[in-house]
């Protein structure tokens, strides 16, 4: 641009300021987006969705966002049924995964990285478990802590119910595709991440698995996996393998308020600040 076009030689005192009648912004004005967004699915992603909703609504007060959590599979199911706009899911539900067929026509929008940890009750004197040991425990072949270096006590297996994204990822990555076998005793299924934390914290000699975000407080502890501690740093470094992306599934490409909301969740502003404070890992960290 020629310099003469950029400079105004003016004697107008107000020329340097944005006057009350200032030029319009090319950006979409705050509050101009309206509508309703419904989100259902992963309980692990629920705190993230609620935090993002709160921040997004401050910029767009006329967008109503209602969220619920019932396990990952109910996310794409709800989108499929048309009873939710966004299905929060701990796996890419547009592709087949063990136990679940792909949901055709759905688009997976990455929103977070979710590390998962093997957790045990604080009474358990074991700090590390290998893939084979975990496969043995969850398949029911190993039933006593003494067989994996602990005390002589029965192992109580606590698992998430069928349809849980945490369960899908744990089986695929910690158990290398191994089964979780239902047992008549020393076995319990729970319906949410919160229930898992409570169950492992209150059940002596128990073992379970949970999103890393929930491993604080309570009478439970995370154990290392194949000698690697379950930390966000180790996930980012690539040494800790039990993690997945969290997705917002949508019917086709998102549009309107739903797209604007997903864009906000994926923004640097949200990813590098609020998302991290909720102990998720930004998707950009995994490049």
């Amino acid at each position, binding site marked *: 641009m020629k310099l003469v076009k950029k400079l105004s030689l003016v*004697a107008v005192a107000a020329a340097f300021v944005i006057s009350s009648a200032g030029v319009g912004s090319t950006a979409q*004005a705050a509050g101009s987006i309206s509508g309703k967004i419904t989100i259902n699915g992963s309980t692990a992603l629920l705190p993230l969705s609620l935090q993002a909703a709160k921040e997004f609504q*401050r910029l767009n007060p006329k967008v109503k966002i*209602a969220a619920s959590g019932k396990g990952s599979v109910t996310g794409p199911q709800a989108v499929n049924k048309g009873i939710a706009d966004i299905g929060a899911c701990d796996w890419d539900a547009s592709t087949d995964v063990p136990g679940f067929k792909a949901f055709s026509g759905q688009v997976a929008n990455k929103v977070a990285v979710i590390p998962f940890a093997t957790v045990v009750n604080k009474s358990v004197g074991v700090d590390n478990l290998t893939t084979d040991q975990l496969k043995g425990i969850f398949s029911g072949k190993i039933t006593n802590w003494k067989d994996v270096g602990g005390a002589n006590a029965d192992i109580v297996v606590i698992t998430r119910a069928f349809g849980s994204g945490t369960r899908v990822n744990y089986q695929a990555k910690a158990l290398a595709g191994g089964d979780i076998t239902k047992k008549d005793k020393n076995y319990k299924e729970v319906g949410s991440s919160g229930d898992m934390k409570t169950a492992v914290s209150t059940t002596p000699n128990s073992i379970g698995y949970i999103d890393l975000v929930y491993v604080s407080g309570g009478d439970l502890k995370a154990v290392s996996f194949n000698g690697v501690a379950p930390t966000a740093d180790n996930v980012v470094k690539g040494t800790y393998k039990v993690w997945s992306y969290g997705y917002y599934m949508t019917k086709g490409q998102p549009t309107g308020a739903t797209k604007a909301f997903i864009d906000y969740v994926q923004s640097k*502003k949200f990813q590098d600040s609020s998302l991290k*404070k909720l102990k998720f890992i930004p998707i950009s960290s995994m490049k």
Partner: protein
Amino acid sequence: MRNSKVFSMLVASALVTTVAAAGSAQAAAKPVKPSQTVAPAKTTAKFKVLNSNVQVDGQNSIVKTIQVGTEKLYAVRDLADAVSAGIQLGKGDIQLTDSHGYHTVSIRPNVKTLQVDGASQDYTTAPKVQDGVVYVELEATINALGAELTSTGIYSQQRLEGDFSSPSFNDQGQVIVTKNDGDALQVFALNAALGTPNQILTSNESAAGAAISPDRKWGAFANESGQLFVYDLANGLAKQVGADSSTKTDLIWSADGKKIYFIQGDKQEKISYITVEDGKITELLADKVENKSDLQVDATDKKIAYLVNVTGVAKNDADSTEDSLTIDYTGAGAQVYSLDTVTKGAKPVQLTKTTDNKLLPSFLSDGSLVYVSADPDDKAGIGSLKNISVDGTKTTDLVKDIDVTLDVVTREGKLIVAGIKADGKTGVFEVSATGTKTELYNTADDVSEVAVSKDGKLVLISGGKVVIVQGNKGIELTK
């Protein structure tokens, strides 16, 4: 309208084209030292010398110019004076140094190449000498000095460019703001006065959007490990407070600056505070109600308010079949609660039950609460500012004649409200306890955040830019 057209109109209407006319424009202008050896009244030069007004940091300056073909050239000494740059005559060159000593520029008369911090650049038109005055191209010279040329004038200091949020003021009157679009989130301290350098306060991403202490000296934040820090808003230095690593959100300082309250827990189910001096955490509420947010503390430190974000209820069968899945969203949404923190055994009190969006709850000085209400179900409706009485029994509209989008209560107790007016502009108002509005500023742009300094200065985020309001006019501190 394109810049070039704006320029043409402005030049046509406002350009001061003669030496004689310059006097009339001088009244409002910043005094500039006379150009060296210039004798404008009786020039016999080839090019006609004009006295022109140039806006520098919002102030008028007079700069002599000549028109060389299609290029307007500016007297280098006048220009240096206007942007407060140093000027020295060297051996065959003129050396300019910006006022902060960051950039050195060497210009040779009749030579297209100039040296900028030791590197060569080219003018389009070589500097001309007339009557002992050296005239240079404006844009290249301004850029070389680290200043900024815009369609409305010159900023003697390059403004930051990008997307900004979370404005506040420190006790020195600097604007603390987060830049969102760099390689990492960064917190800057911007000077409200143009022409002064900006400072990166911290590159600690966790400090973005920190809670500002009542004396505006400290920002409080929790990092990704849940550990709480305060950092000095003058120099960015942080210190850890306590050692607890549970998840903490919605930090807010007590009025006396001795405590920091926060929502605590993986599911944001508790409310606690930490004593800044010793790092001791005290749990105020652990009622197992999840998804709390927007914590507020009243001026007496005896009452807190917060939102509970009620989720929908999803049900299915034991096999998680799609056919069995139902979701009831009718009860989903935010509700306002308060808690008496002094009375032993006091229980939270639910203050609202409606399904509208409830945003930005704040305590007023009298202990009542305000919040922005917006009802997406009401297509024709507009946002309003609701007021919940001190005893919690009555909710009324405090502002309902503009489409209210945000509210802020300052440390000094002023209620600031922004909203879209009937003419489509966004107005920022101070609102009295009875709802009387006094307009402080309005703009055709959006306003997403507002903060107020201790001396009443207003800063806002508009289209991602930081705008400071002086008088009733907004000055963009960033671009």
